[in-house]
C-alpha cells in the first residue's frame, strides 16, 4: 500500500462518516429515550433494545431471519454446486438446454412468480411455515452459472487421477472440486445470504403469522403501526433497525474484500 498524505486521509474519513451519517445517527438515536429525543436532550439508555427484543418480539424475528437465510444459503449452495459440477464436467443430452434455462433465469424478474408462487404454496399448505419462506428462494441460477465457470478452470487431470483410484462422482465433487472451489463457493454463499436476509416482498406476502416474521417484515410493521399513542417513537424504531442491520454489518466488515471481489467477477462475466 502506498503511503499517503495525512490531510487526504483525514478528509476521506470525514467524507465516509458524512456519507454514513444517517445510519450512524440512527444507531446513536437508538440509545436515547423518546422523550429526550423529542426534547433534544442527550442521555443513554438500553431501554429501546429491551423493548424491541422483549415486547416487540425482535429476538424471535432475528432467529427467524437466521434460520431462513441460513437454510436458503446451505440448500441453495448445495443445489447449485451439484448442478454446476454436472454442467462443468459432463456432456449429456439436454445438458446445454438445461444450462441455458438456468442462465436464462438471471433475466427473469422475480415478481412474475409472486402471485403463482403464492398460490402454489397456498395449495401445498406451506404459507406461514419456514418451508414456504425457504423453498422459492433455493434455486439460484447465478450461483450455478458462477460456480460452473469456476469449476471449469480446475484441471480435469485432478478428477481423472481420482477416478483412477476408484472414486465415485460424488467423492470427486466433495474431495476435489469443492475444496478447490472454496473461494467461489464462499463468495456465492455470502451473496445468497445477504440477498435472502434483505428479502422483503416474498416474506411480506408469504407470512401472516407474527411468529414467523423475519426482521425485515417486523421492522417495516413496527414502523408502520406506531405502537405508542402519540408521535412515532423514533428511538425504538431505530433500535429495531439497528438489530436488523447489525448481523450483516458485522459479517460485511469481516469479509468485505471477498464480497467486492465476487461482485466484480460477477459483473464482468
Amino acid at each position, binding site marked *: 500500500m502506498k503511503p499517503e498524505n495525512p490531510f487526504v486521509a483525514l478528509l476521506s474519513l470525514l467524507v465516509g462518516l458524512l456519507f454514513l451519517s444517517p445510519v450512524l445517527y440512527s444507531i446513536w438515536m437508538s440509545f436515547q429515550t423518546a422523550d429526550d429525543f423529542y426534547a433534544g436532550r442527550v442521555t443513554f439508555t438500553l431501554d429501546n433494545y429491551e423493548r424491541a427484543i422483549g415486547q416487540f418480539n425482535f429476538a424471535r424475528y432475528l*432467529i427467524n431471519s*437466521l*434460520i431462513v437465510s*441460513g*437454510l436458503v444459503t*446451505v440448500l441453495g449452495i448445495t443445489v447449485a454446486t451439484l448442478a454446476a459440477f454436472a454442467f462443468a464436467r459432463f456432456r449429456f443430452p439436454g445438458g446445454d438446454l438445461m444450462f441455458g434455462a438456468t442462465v436464462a433465469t438471471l433475466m427473469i424478474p422475480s415478481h412474475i412468480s409472486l402471485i403463482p408462487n*403464492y*398460490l402454489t*404454496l*397456498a*395449495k401445498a*399448505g406451506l*404459507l*406461514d411455515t*419456514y418451508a414456504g419462506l425457504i423453498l422459492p428462494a433455493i434455486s439460484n441460477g447465478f450461483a450455478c452459472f458462477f460456480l460452473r465457470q469456476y469449476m471449469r478452470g480446475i484441471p480435469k487431470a485432478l478428477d481423472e487421477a481420482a477416478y483412477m483410484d476408484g472414486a465415485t462422482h460424488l467423492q470427486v465433487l466433495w474431495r476435489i472440486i469443492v475444496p478447490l472451489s472454496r473461494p467461489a463457493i464462499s463468495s456465492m454463499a455470502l451473496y445468497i445470504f445477504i440477498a435472502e436476509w434483505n428479502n422483503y416482498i416474498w416474506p411480506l*406476502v408469504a407470512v*401472516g*403469522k*407474527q411468529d414467523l416474521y423475519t426482521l425485515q417484515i417486523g421492522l417495516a410493521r413496527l414502523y408502520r*403501526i*406506531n*405502537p*405508542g*399513542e*402519540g*408521535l*412515532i417513537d423514533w428511538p425504538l424504531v431505530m433500535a429495531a433497525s439497528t438489530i436488523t442491520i447489525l448481523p450483516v454489518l458485522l459479517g460485511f466488515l469481516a469479509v468485505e474484500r471477498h464480497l467486492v471481489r465476487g461482485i466484480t467477477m460477477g459483473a464482468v462475466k
Partner: protein
Amino acid sequence: MIRKLHSTIAASAFALFAAVGTAEAATTVKFWHTFSKTNGEALNKIIASFEAAHPDIHVEAEFVGNYNDLVAKLQAGIPARRTPDAVILEITRYGLFANNNVLTDLTPYFAADPLKDDLYDYAREIGVINGKNYVVPFNSSTPVLYVNKDIFARAGLSADTPLKTFDDVLKAAKTIQDKLGAEGISGIGAPGQFARWGLVMSNDSELIDPKTNKILLDKPNTIEAYQWMASLVSQHKVASPDGVTDEDKGNAMFMAGKVGIDMDSTGSYGGRKKALGDNLLVRPMPCNKVCSVPIGGAGIGIMASSPKEVQDAAYTFVSYAASPEANAAWFAATGYLPINKKSAALPVAVKALESQPGIDVAINSLPYAHGRARATFVTWMRTTEYKVWQSIALGQRKADEALKDFAEQTRKESQRTGN
C-alpha cells in the same frame, strides 16, 4: 465454527417446530381484530373475562392492523386456507365475504339467542344483507368532532364556538392556524375516510345509496364536500398533509396536542381522553346542509370454513362480546356506542357517562345516524378511495374530474362483481 452454527440452527429450528405441536385444551377460537393500544387493552379484558366464564373455550386473539389491513389479510388468506374462526369486519366491507359464501349465515344462531331482543335496532341492522345475518355488532360508532380545548383557548376561541357549517369549521381552523401555526400547530386534522363519508352526508349526499346501491360519488353535493375538505389542505393550508398520506399519523398529531380540531370515530374517544385529559372536548359533526352521520364500526363474523364445534364456540364468544357486561365495559373504555339496550344502566356505563364528558355526543347523534351500503364492491371502493382523496387533497387533480372518473370505475367494478 460453521458446524457449531449449523447444529445451533438445527436445534432452534427443532425447538420451534416442537412448540407448534403442543396440545391445547378444549376448543380454540382464532379471532382476528383491529384494536390496539387503549382499545386493544379493553378487548383483552373482555376476552379474559369471557375465558374465565367459559373455561372450555380459548380465544386466540390477534391484532392484524386497521380495517383495510384486515380485509386484505382475510382475502389473501382464502386460497391459503389461513383464516381465523371469528373476525372483526367493518360494516361496509363484509359484503364481499358474505356474498362469496366465506362467512357463515348466523341467522339460526341469532334467532335462538335472547341477545337479539336486547340489541338496538340500528346495531342489529348493520349485520344484515338480504335478510340474512352475517355479523353480530360489536363496536358501533359515528364520527364526532374532537376539539383540543387548550389550543382553542390559546387561539382565543371559546369552547362553544359555532362549528355547525363548513364555514364555521374553516373559520375556527383558520383562527388557530393564524395564531399558533408558527408553533407547529395545525388548525384541523385532514379528515380520515370515515369522517369524509360523514362530511359528504352532512352535505346532504352519499357515496353510495344504502338502499339501491346506486353510486353517488359524482353527485354535485359529494363533489362539493370533497372540494371543501381538500381546500383545508391545499388552499387554506389549515390541515397538514401528514394526515392525508397516513390517517394514523394524523390521529397521532392530535393526540400529541398539535392539532386543534379533528373529526374521527367516537371509538377513538378512550385513547384521545387518555392523551389529552381535560383538554379534550367532543362536539357533534357539522350539519352543513343537513344533520346526518354515518354509522360505522364493525361486527364479528364467523368463517364458513371452520368446523361446526368451533363455530359454536365462536358464536358463544360473539354473543358474549355484545352482552350488557361486555358492551358496557367496552363503551366505558373506548367510547364506542352502546349497542345493547341493557348496557347503559350498568354501573360502569353510568359512571363513564358521568365522569367522561363528551362520551355521549355520539349517542346523542343516533337520531340522525344512518346505515351505509354494504354491497360487494364497497370494499373495492373504499380501498381505492384513499388514492383518489390524496390526489384531490394534494392538489394533483380537481375534485369534480377525479370523482367522476372514480364513479365510472366504481360502476364498472360493481357490474363486474354482479352487484
